[in-house]
């Protein structure tokens, strides 16, 4: 039987979860920018956003994170590791594309060496996704074989009611069930009609694109230079992307003590691959853009069997020069494979 969470009960839910020791996080907009942030009251949520400017990634893989602290003394060096905060969290109102982005990155952080910084956060976070009822010109989840109501990566999926006064609750995992048992008495039995999910037009034929990308002959196609000519080489697409996961280590400190940090890094920076000798395997911006597309739709699925793109469209939405995955793959769809 379906249960309903009414909007006016949400504030009670937030309070109840907070009492239970959970940090409640959700889409929040301030004057100029939006992100997933911690809230104290339900009124702080803004569910009217298509999606927050910044992806959910930063809650699991922060832009900068201390890894270890060192102190250097005479004849000895002491180090102590940082660990992610142990607090349990609930993210209420994630978008399905953001939630799937996390699921996409799980195998990457899990293969070979299991990255505790990622998985401890994954294990202590409940993700409550709200299906999208509206989309904009940049949304492209359907082109990635996902949907505005995908359940991938979510613990609970909520479908907005047609009357806009609540959500149908669809519990998907034990973790999600536990979190909603906490507030079981605030839920109602029964099911109102759900609002229709957003219509997201299919923007390109993924299979055709992947086939083109997999053809080694196309690696040095002039297409890459043409499509990336206006790329200015910033990292806003990669940093806002819910699945881009490249990082860098930086030591900050002096010869007595300091901290080694893990920072986001981006394949679109020229220095990303630069060798000591000055040789740069990806010396041009077009080679770097090609790497990004190839990595997402050819290399990553070759290794982990899933495309490294969840179709949120942030790369195109926020690009200073209106580039992005959509445009590139649309252009590829029209090329003969």
């Amino acid at each position: 039987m379906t249960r309903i969470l009414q909007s006016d009960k949400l504030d009670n839910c937030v309070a109840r979860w907070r009492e239970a020791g959970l940090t409640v996080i959700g889409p929040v907009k301030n004057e100029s920018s939006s992100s997933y942030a911690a809230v104290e009251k339900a009124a702080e949520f803004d569910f009217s956003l298509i999606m927050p400017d910044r992806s959910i990634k930063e809650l699991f893989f922060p832009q900068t994170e201390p890894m270890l602290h060192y102190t250097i003394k005479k004849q000895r060096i002491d180090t102590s590791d940082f660990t992610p905060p142990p607090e349990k969290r609930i993210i209420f109102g994630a978008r399905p594309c953001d939630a799937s982005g996390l699921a996409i990155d799980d195998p990457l952080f899990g293969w070979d060496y299991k990255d505790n910084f990622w998985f401890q956060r994954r294990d202590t976070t409940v993700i409550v996704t709200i299906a999208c009822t509206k989309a904009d010109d940049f949304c492209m989840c359907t082109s990635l074989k996902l949907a505005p109501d995908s359940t991938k990566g979510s613990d609970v999926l909520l479908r907005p009611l047609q009357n806009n006064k609540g959500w149908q609750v669809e519990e998907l995992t034990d973790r999600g069930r536990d979190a909603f048992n906490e507030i079981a008495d605030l839920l109602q039995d029964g099911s109102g009609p759900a609002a229709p999910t957003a219509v997201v037009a299919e923007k390109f034929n993924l299979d055709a694109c992947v086939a083109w990308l997999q053809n080694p002959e196309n690696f040095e196609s002039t297409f890459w230079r043409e499509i990336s000519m206006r790329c200015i080489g910033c990292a806003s697409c990669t940093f806002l992307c819910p699945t881009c996961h490249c990082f860098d280590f930086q030591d900050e400190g002096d010869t007595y003590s300091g901290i080694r940090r893990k920072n986001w890094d981006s394949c679109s920076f020229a220095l990303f691959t630069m060798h000591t000798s000055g040789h740069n395997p990806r010396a041009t911006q077009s080679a770097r853009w090609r790497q990004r597309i190839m990595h997402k739709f050819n290399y990553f699925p070759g290794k982990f069997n899933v495309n490294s793109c969840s179709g949120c469209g942030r790369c195109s939405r926020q690009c200073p020069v209106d580039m992005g995955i959509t445009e590139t793959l649309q252009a590829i769809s029209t090329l003969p494979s």
Partner: protein
Amino acid sequence: MTIQETYKARVKKLLASGTVKMVIGYKPGTTADRRRPHFIRTPEEADQLVLDSACITNLSGYLLSEGLLSDEKAVAIFLKPDGIRSINILAAEAQLNSEQILILGFDSNDNQVTALEGEKVEEFTTLIESIKEQAPEALKNPLLEQIEGMTPKERFAFWQGEFSRCIKCYACRQACPMCYCRRCIVDCNQPQWVNTSSHTLGNFEWNIVRAFHLSGRCVGCGNCDRACPVNIPLRLINAKMAQEVLGAFDHFSGMSHTQEPVLASFKKDDSETFIL
């Protein structure tokens, strides 16, 4: 004929006659209000050209794309007055030869696009002089004045709040026509002056350094401000510095292609009231 059509015809002519090897302009973007940079190399490609009030990006940074100007062939580029000023600065700082640049000037006011007379950068001097005269008024901004009215503590808190959002994607730097350094100061690590991590301290330092490097050079095109994915009001800090150099040294950036950079020149009687 609309201005767009006039320019389209002119672009086709320029390319067909071989006067220029490329025209940098605008074409339609993903949504109705977006325009994309468009690199036109054949008359046919000019069909996509758009020129309207949504064309706001300053395209001059593309002139420094590696190899573009090295063959000494001419390139035409659509520029608003701020873009023309950035050409002057780039020429003054020896980053390009302004002889190679053919300017297709335009300006837009109240959704109306007007053409600007002239092709070579020198021909716009009178225009830029009139902009300079209006600058003290034009640089005014209510939020800027509000910040100036704050106590240092409040100002610090204001910028701390803004900079805490920075993700160090360097879109501001990459979008800026004036940020052409082969190796930016944040990428230099011996020593590492600025923290590359994007904690608030690192962000604070980065944004101060960038604002300083743009002092007296920024033309106020707003590329950085629009590029910022987290909407930090970068334009304010640059406008403030522009006001400062205008007031202190009567320097208005991009006046001519021979203008001395403000921080690479001096007058013996520069103000020094603050020096003990």
